[in-house]
């Protein structure tokens, strides 16, 4: 499985340059900027006038990087991410993805939604197949089926392929959603609080699964995730973007996570660097640590 992936990407690199389809160009060049957010503000018209959600955000994300956006509820984390996906159009500024200005959603950016968003009338297999079918129009049916099988296997859902979403646990639903996003082979993966609804144990194993999929693809995919879980952000990300509270939210600070990969969930917590980063994030996000601080 793993070797197979490596071979595929080698072929892609050797043939290089000429190949420029939306789905595999990132294999040619893993250097450079993947996402460039330039001066982005988003405002909505409400009954009380215009409300600005995020204001003058600048952020560059490199190819193959994992970036976590963290902040309090309602600070505009999701809005910021939706400007990357194209679901939200910036009122000011622009987002450049792979050297193109974002004008709307594109399968080049896979999205894993907060509430899984599986179609309840389709089986696990069909949920992934329809996405693959919509994105890879030129491929033959046999190839599309193989892609679905491969991704189902990567998340260990082959035995559950004919089940409907309602028959799955929360963790399994999220696996399907992640497999669906990976199956269309986007260069960028956007995850909106993907593990928020899962229990702590399932969450931990999902983190490892996500990194496994990222590794299988030679760490070529850029991953941006919104979260409010500090431990999750440290374990997964290369950089953590801490947001100010809204309205008119801005970036408070960007924290680098220079912890070595592959990271081990059990060992990582004992590293002094981990504790240092954890503390830094806590003090950025939380002002009051005990009831004494409240006086």
């Amino acid at each position, binding site marked *: 499985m793993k070797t197979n992936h490596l071979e595929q990407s080698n072929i892609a690199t050797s043939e290089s340059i000429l190949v420029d389809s939306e789905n595999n160009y990132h294999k040619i060049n893993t250097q450079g900027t993947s996402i460039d957010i330039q001066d982005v503000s988003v405002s909505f018209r409400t009954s009380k006038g215009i409300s600005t959600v995020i204001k003058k955000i600048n952020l560059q994300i490199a190819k193959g990087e994992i970036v976590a956006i963290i902040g309090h509820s309602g600070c505009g984390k999701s809005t910021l991410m939706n400007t990357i996906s194209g679901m939200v159009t910036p009122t000011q500024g622009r987002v450049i993805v792979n050297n193109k200005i974002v004008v709307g*959603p594109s*399968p080049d950016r896979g999205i894993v939604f907060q509430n899984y*968003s599986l179609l309840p*009338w389709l089986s696990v297999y069909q949920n992934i197949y*329809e996405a693959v079918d*919509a994105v890879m129009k030129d491929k033959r049916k046999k190839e599309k089926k193989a892609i679905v099988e491969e991704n189902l296997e990567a998340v260990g859902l082959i035995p559950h392929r004919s089940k409907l979403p309602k028959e799955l646990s929360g963790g399994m639903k999220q696996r399907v959603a992640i497999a*669906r996003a990976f199956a269309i082979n986007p260069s960028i993966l956007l995850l909106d609080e993907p593990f928020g609804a899962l229990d702590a144990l399932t969450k931990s194993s999902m983190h490892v699964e996500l990194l496994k999929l990222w590794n299988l693809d030679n760490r070529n995919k850029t991953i941006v995730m919104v979260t409010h879980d500090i431990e999750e952000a440290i374990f997964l990300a290369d950089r953590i973007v801490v947001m100010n509270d809204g309205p008119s939210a801005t970036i408070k600070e960007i924290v680098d996570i220079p912890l070595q990969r592959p990271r081990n969930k059990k060992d990582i917590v004992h590293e002094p660097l981990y504790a240092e980063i954890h503390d830094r994030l806590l003090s950025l996000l939380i002002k009051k640590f005990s009831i004494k601080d409240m006086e």
Partner: protein
Amino acid sequence: MKQIFQIKNTFSLLYFLMSALLLVGIWKVISILTEGEIPSPAATWLIFQEMLSDPFYDYGPNDKGIGLQLWNSVKRVFIGFSLGSLIAIPLGMLMGSNKLAMRLFNPLVQVFRPVSPLAWFPLGLLAFKNAEGATIFIITITSLWSTLINTAFGVSSIPQEYKNVSTAFGFSKWKYIVKIMIPYALPHIITGLRLSIGVAWMVIVAGEMLSGGIGIGFFVWDSWNALSLEKILIAILIIGIVGLLLDKFFNLIQKLTVYEN
């Protein structure tokens, strides 16, 4: 488990028998009170047996068996209902997904929906030059409204969540209709169809009284002219039972199409 199921079945059978008994009791009392003007259950039962002995006889245009009458009514309802649904479902989907279509068609629907379908009968006669066409025409009109409104409602209430899936993965218009719009709206559409067929079955009786010829409605009117109240009572029961069966049928389909999130 199986045993519990059987006990439950036995009870519902018992209740059914009790309600049948209640009906016969009230009927009997009314028959006695009207001094036989309303025929008694026993007298009606005799005529019913006679009618059932040869339900499909055909002795010319004004004398046909109850089976033939019923079959013709069901056929008309089926044709009119199918035509109405074929118009209502696509139009409802258009109205539910497009604001302009909703604004254009909704006022028309609101105005014509409360009109008794029988009011359309003369227009049907004018258009088709025969009673058969006119009857099917009014059933078609009848079958439009509930299906149209329910389909439009179902389609317009597709959650943003599913629309986002469609945009995020670049679904084509066709894929969106087939994989998201129709599956999501299907329970609503079936509800609309179920209501439509109920009204259509009610309207066919009145329609056939106007059109004459053949059909269960005509049979009721013809029996009144022949002063055979037994036949009218039998026809009422049969109309009720067929209506119930149609409803049960759509209820079954409805249960099959409901999905859970």
